């Protein structure tokens, strides 16, 4: 869940003189009040250090924290690092966190591991906030110890961590200590309301472990999480992270039950996981217990969830809609269904689809331009690839198609212009 834009902003902040002022800001001592707050949900067992129970807990927590997303490549050894993260300033590579003494974390002790997750500081360097220590900071010591114990049980892999290839001044790691002063917070703000045990457990799972905020919360000028807008969505990568506040989820038709199904299986009536969210389901949420998924959805939607909003009726220009409908029947209906119902195991429905219902057309347009890779979901479920239409449909046609989808099944105005599509056409990215 590392995003170059975030990093760019964070690092750009270092280069600005104004940062000097932040160095004068009061620095929190670093004792985490959130740890106490979350203890009731964390480290459910006070497992004996090094015990099978602690290692099993660590394995579960490592999945909940989605470590593999950045530390395991598709073809590499578990946790041996190497996941490439592109940015305008160069490339980052997930580090080797196997117990290899030379290349991994084999020489670290549990205190040092805790400090890395809690403070973003390893025995040899400051971490870039691409490693979401800003969220992991809320992890309890018992839980970081469990993850540490689990990682130490992994096979050591003698693969060196590739150094980040960054240009000046972004390659100055020590600068992160100045960034941390104002921006490393002990607690994230909540987008929902609740006080039940389930909500509190969900708060810990979502904020500390799942680090949802890292993608779904907008960032300020210095790349810091804008905690006044928690989980309201952010256009970080090619696929934007949508608004997952209670109001944002309700607005596009999510229910707690559907959201739980989505986390467990990757597919719900509102659509399937794609973009950055697919690996989250693939590597992390599908492995959470039913109770923990209930907790996550309770936290995201609140103890008193808002009712899902019905799709509004939209009045749109008939000619525009007709043009879009013709395109839909020509190149979309074969998979998504003439009536937008989708086809089981083939393509998701457009009717009720949360991307179609999203007021921001970004992801809808990107999906049509780039397509979506074939994906294997938990169990035996899979969806074939969706082809990208960047080479087949021009900007005007894709705008017409977007408008037809939005007005017919999204409850959104048919206001997309060809220029909006043009702005999102890829120049570099993988298709």
């Amino acid at each position: 869940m590392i995003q170059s834009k975030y990093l760019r902003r964070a690092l750009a902040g270092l280069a600005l003189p104004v940062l000097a002022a932040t160095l004068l800001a009061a620095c929190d001592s670093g004792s985490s009040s959130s740890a106490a707050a979350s203890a009731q949900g964390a480290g459910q067992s006070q497992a004996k250090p090094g015990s099978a129970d602690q290692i099993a807990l660590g394995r579960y927590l490592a999945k909940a924290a989605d470590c593999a997303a950045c530390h395991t490549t598709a073809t590499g050894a578990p946790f041996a690092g190497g996941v490439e993260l592109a940015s305008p300033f160069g490339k980052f590579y997930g580090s080797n966190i196997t117990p290899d003494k030379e290349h991994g974390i084999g020489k670290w002790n549990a205190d040092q591991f805790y400090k890395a997750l809690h403070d973003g500081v390893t025995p040899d360097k400051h971490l870039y906030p691409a490693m979401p220590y800003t969220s992991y900071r809320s992890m309890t010591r018992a839980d970081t110890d469990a993850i540490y114990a689990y990682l130490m049980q992994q096979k050591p892999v003698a693969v060196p961590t590739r150094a980040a290839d960054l240009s000046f001044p972004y390659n100055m790691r020590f600068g992160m200590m100045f960034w941390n002063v104002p921006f490393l917070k002990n607690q994230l703000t909540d987008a929902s309301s609740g006080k039940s045990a389930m909500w509190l457990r969900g708060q810990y799972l979502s904020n500390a472990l799942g680090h949802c905020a890292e993608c779904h919360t907008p960032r300020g000028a210095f790349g810091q999480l804008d905690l006044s807008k928690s989980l309201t969505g952010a256009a970080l990568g090619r696929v934007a992270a949508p608004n997952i506040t209670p109001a944002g989820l309700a607005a596009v038709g999510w229910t707690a039950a559907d959201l739980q199904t989505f986390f467990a299986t990757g597919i719900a009536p509102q659509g399937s996981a794609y973009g950055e969210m697919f690996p989250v389901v693939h590597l992390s949420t599908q492995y959470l217990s039913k109770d923990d998924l209930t907790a996550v959805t309770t936290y995201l939607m609140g103890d008193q969830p808002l009712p899902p909003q019905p799709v509004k009726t939209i009045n749109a220009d008939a000619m525009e809609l007709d043009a879009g409908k013709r395109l839909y029947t020509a190149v979309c209906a074969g998979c998504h269904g003439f009536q937008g119902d989708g086809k089981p195991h083939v393509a998701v429905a457009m009717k009720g689809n949360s991307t179609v219902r999203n007021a921001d057309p970004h992801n809808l347009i990107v999906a049509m331009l780039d397509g979506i890779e074939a994906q294997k979901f938990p169990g035996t479920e899979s969806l074939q690839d969706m082809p990208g239409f960047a080479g087949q449909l021009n900007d005007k046609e894709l705008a017409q198609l977007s408008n037809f989808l939005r007005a017919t099944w999204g409850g959104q105005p048919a206001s997309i212009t060809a220029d909006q599509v043009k702005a999102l056409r890829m120049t570099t990215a993988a298709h």
Partner: protein
Amino acid sequence: MSMTIHPITMHINGKPVGPVPVPEGIMMIDFLHEYLDLTGSRLGCGQGICRACVVILDKPDGSSEEVRSCITGAHFFEGKKVRTIEGHAQRNEQGEVVALSPIQQKFLEHYSFQCGYCTPGFVNAATVLVEKLKRQPVTKAQLDDTITEGLNDHICRCTGYVRYFEAVKEVVLSTPGLVKDAK
């Protein structure tokens, strides 16, 4: 959405077709089968995976490409030029086949197909490949990869891939101008 009828006009295998009134949501393969009695294109998976159903779209710039007729609406082809499996062989005035296309002939000679269900798709894929090579020849060293890439998306459940490959390679090597350094 309400179902409406839209007339459709196109060129298929060099002949004008239409206007034919057809429901707006109909897929191309159903249009070929049910309205034109062109039943050679095969409906396999029905979801764009197997490519048994592909037809050839002839573009205004002289290039050609495959289009999956099972997931592409008939109206997508409005005003366009299409070739189906029925359009490859030469026919006399009575409509009788008098000569196969080079691809079809080599498929026969190599016994490339067994049950034959995927063959229309492979004929179209190979034809598009040959036509692409006429515009953009490759070296002999590139040929195997080029053929593999050209046929790769097509599924043959009888696993006739090797013989399809060999037949296409023979056509390419025996057709002047497709391989830069062919002897």
